[in-house]
């Protein structure tokens, strides 16, 4: 009986909530991302260029199909970003927290929703945003499954890497 009431409440809540609450800004008609071009994908909505895939911990480029491990330490992630040459560009970096959050979306959920090719067993991605509340240097990561923000020490192999670069002024 309680379960039935709960369902009714949920339905009532959902039906009561206007778009102001359960907003779902459906821009699906708009082509936000470009096709893959030289291992890059452009996000026209935010003026960012992304690596088209997770970065290999060994090559610093897109992971190959045979690579299993995509995670690397935060320290290595930051260093790889600065050294990567993808699509002829050398100004790659790790996304900050807010840039990384743009890869997540959905109307009835909130999960990774970008066309960037994930690495195998990829659970979270590194950001360049630090968590100064930690005693040991840490960077914020975002869980692929639900966009949750979790800080990890830079020395831990906690997350995988997507790289980003600016293509328009004032994007940050």
């Amino acid at each position, binding site marked *: 009986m309680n379960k039935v009431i709960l369902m009714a409440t949920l339905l009532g809540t959902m039906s009561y909530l206007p778009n102001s609450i359960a907003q779902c800004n459906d821009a699906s008609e708009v*082509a936000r991302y470009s096709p893959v071009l030289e291992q890059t994908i452009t996000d026209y909505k935010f003026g960012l260029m992304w690596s088209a895939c997770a970065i290999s911990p060994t090559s610093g480029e897109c992971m190959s199909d045979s690579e299993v491990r995509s995670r690397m330490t935060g320290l290595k992630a930051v260093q790889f970003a600065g050294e990567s040459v993808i699509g002829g560009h050398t100004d790659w970096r790790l996304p900050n927290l*807010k840039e990384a959050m743009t890869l*997540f979306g959905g109307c009835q959920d909130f999960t990774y929703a970008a066309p960037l090719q994930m690495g195998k067993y990829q659970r979270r991605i590194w950001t360049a945003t630090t968590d100064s509340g930690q005693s040991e240097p840490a960077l914020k990561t975002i869980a692929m499954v639900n966009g949750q923000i979790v800080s990890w020490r*830079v020395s831990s192999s906690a997350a995988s890497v997507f790289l980003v670069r600016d293509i328009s002024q004032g994007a940050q």
Partner: protein
Amino acid sequence: MLRSISAALVCAASISVQAFEVQLPQYISPGEQVVLSASPIAQYDEFAWQSSSFHAQLQSYGEKQQFAVLKLPKYASDTQINIYTYALQGWSYETKQNLIEVRANKPKLPSSIAISGPSTLLLDQPNVLSLQGVAPNTRISWQAVDDNGSNQGAVLQSVSDNQVELSLDSAVFQSESINVLATLNVSGWQYQVTKSFNLDGQVTQPNLVINTQNTYQEHKSGQLSALVEHTSPDDEVTYQWRVINKGLAEAVTLSTSNQAQTDVLVEGIEKVSKVTLAVTAEINSLDKTASLTKEFDITVTANKAPSLNFTTSKPQLWDGESMTVVVEATDPEQDTTTLTVENLTPDFISISKKNTNYLVKANAVTADAMGRIKLTVEDLWGNRSSEILDVKVRRLPNIHFSHKHRLYANSPGLLKAEIDIPVNQVQAVEWQQVLGEPVQLNKVAEFEANYVANEGGTDLSFTLNLTLSPDVVVSAQTQINVLSSQRLNDTGDVSYIDKNARWTLDSLQSLAGLDALIGRDASEVLLKQGAGPQGFDFDFLSGSGAVLPAFSSQAACLRDNHTGSVWLLKNQQNGDLQTKKNLVEIAADITALNQKQRCGKQTWLLPSAPQLLSVLSTNQSEHTFYWLTGSEPALGRVFSRLQLLSSTEDTGQNYIVNWHPSTLASSWASNQNAYQFLLMAGE
């Protein structure tokens, strides 16, 4: 020859004219035939002949039967034959009896007896002929006939006992030779001496010549003319035309029947027909009369129906399109013709006269149709031909744009159209920009073109022009909304980590690529419209939306000048930041805000997780809550741990941003509970 001579005797001219007496031989041999004649004949009506022989054949002839041929068979046993001749005159008659003795062994005529004369006879002049070798006073009968046994144009005139003049009238005599026959009795036997004379081509016989046209046409008068050649100037020639056989014609009419020239009019035939005509020419002069008749055929062709030929300037018509139709009528006989143009499908096409041609216009149609025009040409005689001109009428195509109508600035756009007619019906496809900042259009397929939109916040408009024919272009317009790229706030992160994975306060020792070194926060020179910590740029707004000085006590909202969002200040007036509410209560607040158009906005909402994060700073000391609450940092307000609710929802849980003075994280929690929250108004 014997037959010829016998026939000649029918027309023989008698030379001796005596009171009724009978000329006949004294002897006849079995198997011989002799000629008997009675003369004169003028005063008698008719003569009759009779013989006493049972075997002899006696056959009379001549105008009054004044001649008779007595033929005695070889087997006859008669020794003598009595010949009785009766000259009838009214109710009375005279009679003569003569005896012919039958003897065998008729002596041959001496070869010295022969007809002599000029080697060549002359026309229209007397030619003297004589029978040589005969004794004086020998009774001789002369005849002259042509090869056909006719004596027409030949006149004999006795000159002496054994001479005669033969005159041949060139206007009448029509033979190349003349046979002269002299019948005489020698020693009681009857002999006949003949001789042929050649005229050596002197004879120019009258010749009836008919001139006709090669062909004659029905309903058209055609000429006929006749001419008699080789006539004398004094000759009077009259003509008589007549129709012998109409052939397949209903009527054959001659304009005149007694002139040398006439017109013939043939009517009522359906195919080529022969008509048989005849003309008789009567030649009359003082001394002769001749008649020449010729039958001849003329070939008459039936009057043919006129024919039609038409050309159209276009193979088909699109809705509303026009074309010229040129119609030409040709009549084989050059008859005047009448052209009729009938519109059989007025629903599909209309027709009007344009000079000597016709203008055909397609009506508005919703589906392809076939217009039909009947062309009829008719000549004077009712012969007609018809042709059907089919005009394909095409409906105009519907253009459907299947591309996306919104795109972000600097992103490639694709224009794509589909039509509901076969593509090969379109002669040319042209995309054209008619609105917005000019873009470079590149045609990538028949109905596709791409471009790159440069500036956001504007609309682009393009037309697609389909050329269906030189006169028909169908256009459709499509509108593209170009969205501006959205801007993200920086995070407010100012912490550094060195390459040994240690915190450092020295940016120079920091790992390159950390958040604190990049972006608006790290910019040494950052122009702001308002004010704010790190890279944030805020303005305070009054309840009506007017910009107020920073931290004004009248402020109701905070405008993020970088993203364009407006945030409801969490203060005493709007509700403290620490106040917790559930979704239902928050929705009620939003409704009230929209109704009041708080800060000039009626698009208030609970922010999504990214929206909520956008206004937050990870900076521990200079966070944005001072600004979001309108509390000047200098006042030193302390913010405790916050659980900020976002509208991002997943199966009964909402995304919560957990802010703590030392860190910022997130979690999912039941949306049945009450949480702190911020409200924003979107663009």
